[in-house]
């Protein structure tokens, strides 16, 4: 087994644990590269189907290409899609910097969906190498009724035994991609032939490396127009993946505050 086989096997194991232990369960599908890989891994785990709904928390500000992609693959992959929307930005904590406020809308939208569907498990495609506070996450991360991430008091997690507290109001965020690096995601996309929105590939010398809302995500200079070229680019690049995400950079603790409040 090479490194991708091992990452795949571990993610399948995690998805199967979640499916066995958490009901009702849903997977967040943000339409980006990581969550497409995640849907793909679920189909591997469950032999061609996704036996739980996928959720798109719609900020209403995604790129039109992404909405088209969503509708096409909901059909092709026979997904049960749950849609949720986000409150207007005026309802969000005004002490947050502007871009973070925009991200916090998504947190609120997600919270509403968890409530609505009484979810016990939410599968999310975050990775440790994306952001320093995500590097401290658990594979199964319990969230109390306020959905807060209690970073100072995370449960022990070892030997593939995951926390599954069954208490009123507690849900678990499940992170099957935590150990994957950005380049692993791309190599897996290449190996498996996983479809992506075109925005990831260079047009006129620019491409998106990470896709958030239109107004707070900016493209990078790049000529990489195919998956193979993206991989080659990543092998030499020195900038971080989320450099184009405004909300990460507004203040030192902006991202941590978002995450503690329930952001992904």
């Amino acid at each position: 087994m090479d490194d991708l086989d091992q990452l795949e096997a571990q993610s399948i194991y995690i998805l199967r644990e979640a499916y066995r232990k958490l009901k009702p369960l849903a997977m967040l599908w943000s339409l980006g590269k990581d969550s497409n890989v995640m849907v793909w891994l679920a189909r591997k785990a469950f032999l061609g189907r996704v036996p739980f709904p996928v959720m798109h928390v719609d900020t209403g500000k995604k790129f039109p290409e992404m909405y088209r992609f969503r509708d096409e693959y909901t059909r092709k992959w026979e997904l049960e899609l749950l849609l949720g929307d986000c409150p207007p930005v005026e309802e969000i904590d005004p002490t947050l910097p502007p871009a973070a406020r925009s991200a916090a809308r998504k947190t609120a939208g997600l919270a509403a969906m968890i409530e609505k569907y009484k979810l016990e498990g939410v599968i999310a495609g975050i990775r440790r190498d994306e952001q320093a506070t995500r590097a401290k996450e658990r594979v199964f991360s319990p969230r109390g009724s306020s959905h807060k991430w209690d970073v100072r008091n995370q449960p022990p997690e070892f030997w593939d035994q995951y926390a599954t507290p069954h208490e009123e109001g507690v849900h678990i965020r499940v992170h099957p991609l935590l150990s994957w690096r950005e380049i692993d995601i791309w190599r897996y996309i290449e190996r498996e032939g996983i479809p992506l929105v075109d925005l990831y590939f260079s047009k006129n010398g620019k491409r998106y490396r990470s896709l958030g809302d239109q107004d707070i995500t900016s493209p990078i200079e790049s000529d990489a127009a195919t998956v193979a070229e993206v991989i080659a680019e990543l092998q030499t690049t020195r900038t971080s993946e989320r450099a184009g995400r405004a909300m990460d950079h507004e203040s030192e603790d902006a991202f941590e505050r978002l995450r503690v409040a329930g952001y992904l």
Partner: protein
Amino acid sequence: MSNDFRQDAATPIVIVGHVDHGKSTLIGRLLHDTDNLPEGRVAQIIESSRKRGLKVEWSFLLDSLQIERDQGVTVDSTRIPFLLGNRQFVIVDAPGHRQFLRNMITGAADAEAAVLVIDAAEGAQEQTRRHAMLLRLIGIRHVIVLMNKVDLLEYDEQKIAASEQAVAALLKQLDIEPSLFIPASAREGDNIASRSPKMEWYKGPTLTEALALVPSPAGRADLPLRLPVQDVYRFDAKRVVAGRIERGRVNVGDTLVIGTHGTTARVASIEGWHAAPQISAVAGQSVAITLEPDVIPDRGDLLHRPEEAPIRTARIRSRLFWLRQEPLRVGESFRLRLATAEHQVTVASIDSVVRLDDLTEHASDHVPPEGFAEITLAASESILFDAFTPGTTDGRGVLVDRHQRIVGGAPLIGPADIASGTRAIHPTDSTVSLWDRAQARGHRGGVFWMTGLPGAGKSTIARAAESRLFGQKIDVSVLDGDTLRAGLCADLGFSEADRTENVRRAAAVARILAETGQVVLVALISPRAADRDLARQVVGEGFHEVFVDADQATCEARDPKGLYQAARAGRITGFTGIDAPYDVPATPDLHLPTGAGSVAEVAERLATYVADSVALAESTRRRS
């Protein structure tokens, strides 16, 4: 450029050691000196350090949380990918504070090697010892000792050697043979990624050279097969068994034994989606197989080959690292998670506890928080497992409490010797055998464990049966819950742990009496099935569970002691049947409903059952 290169999986390396000995600094330095940092990160670190009035604080690279930076301490483990040449590593920064031991274990448990960071000027400290102990318990074989902050010892060979010797002696006590001692300064970068010009006397490898020498995880494909069932799906009229192969190999056509049922089945196919058809799969793979005949295993069943069976026992000797904030005591019950299986277990004994000051083992009646011990677990059923072996997933037990919280790690060592737990009450040199006693009395000993709700009639029926049996010249006595609570168990309350201890003591006394040849009727509510299983374990042969059965309404109407009334009024709490649970026995040896017949009739049934059970059969042979 072609991207179809194959790579080995990343090797996880955990950095451990006492708080402030320089773990986070070391990692920051390592990542920086080996060019593993994204652009802009260094500028961010400098900015964050400046804001707090510090020089460049490398530890901020991993101490990403605000409280970590403000208080200068790592709270939770971080895992960070790290490339050295073509080889992938994952560096795990573990917190050094005792309070965050659970986070340290979370980071360390799957590491292939550990770097134990020790402040050379200060020497080994409490968490150095605790972490070293844990490395042993979680089975990390490769330990590199980094003697840090040698700048404070002026890079002096003698001083560093003296510090090193003290550490070596400590590790030897734990059977840890470090592969290396590296004198280094994380802050200054000496012997981290480049050789230090200030210590020319040191000829060994730098830290990066040492990491490159750590062997890749050994393959487990050639060991006997272990496939724990994770789940069973029914898709498109086909039943598939899902699970990860922990070791060995599965081939289509293999005959496998399914868990403790002992049923066998043939592997009919290995299923997959968007993958080449497989006829064989190896350790590490998450597979889905179909079986023929189409038997239905349960989650937790271990699939193995008939000739390669694992250990099977209901009493297990185990090591323990204890993570709950309250101490562990004998008699407590947990779920033991073992791969995908879960078993009900009770702590039958605490065999020794490690004293951390000098790493010696001592007898104790409890395991303190963050403590280490060796214990015996009694399970309510036979458990299949392999003894804990570093480098495999064998024997990786985890204890979970009623709230599904992980409270301890329990590397399983092997089956417990039943005799050792009972030596004290049954001297091996006794010349009077059970048989001799039985001959003298005309019947065998036995324990009849009468469980039921308060007011079900346990005491009344026990006393009535006692006098009948005595009339038949049977040597009989009654151990009544209330009597025990007034004397032997006067120190116990009604918490779960105390109830368990109450049961354990009653069982222990009953056993002693039964071994002298007596017939013992125990009348005890004993509401928890796990506690009654513990009693069965303690008593051993000759244990009979008798369910004295009256429904709650009947019991409450009888209320001989006025207790239901008191419980309803809230004057007593934790009362079985009102606000504390009663587990109805699933398969009692004798079921005695008391609602219908008279006391005399029911007592007669019990007496008959007891007399039959203890009678000496004609065919009974003298055992040697």
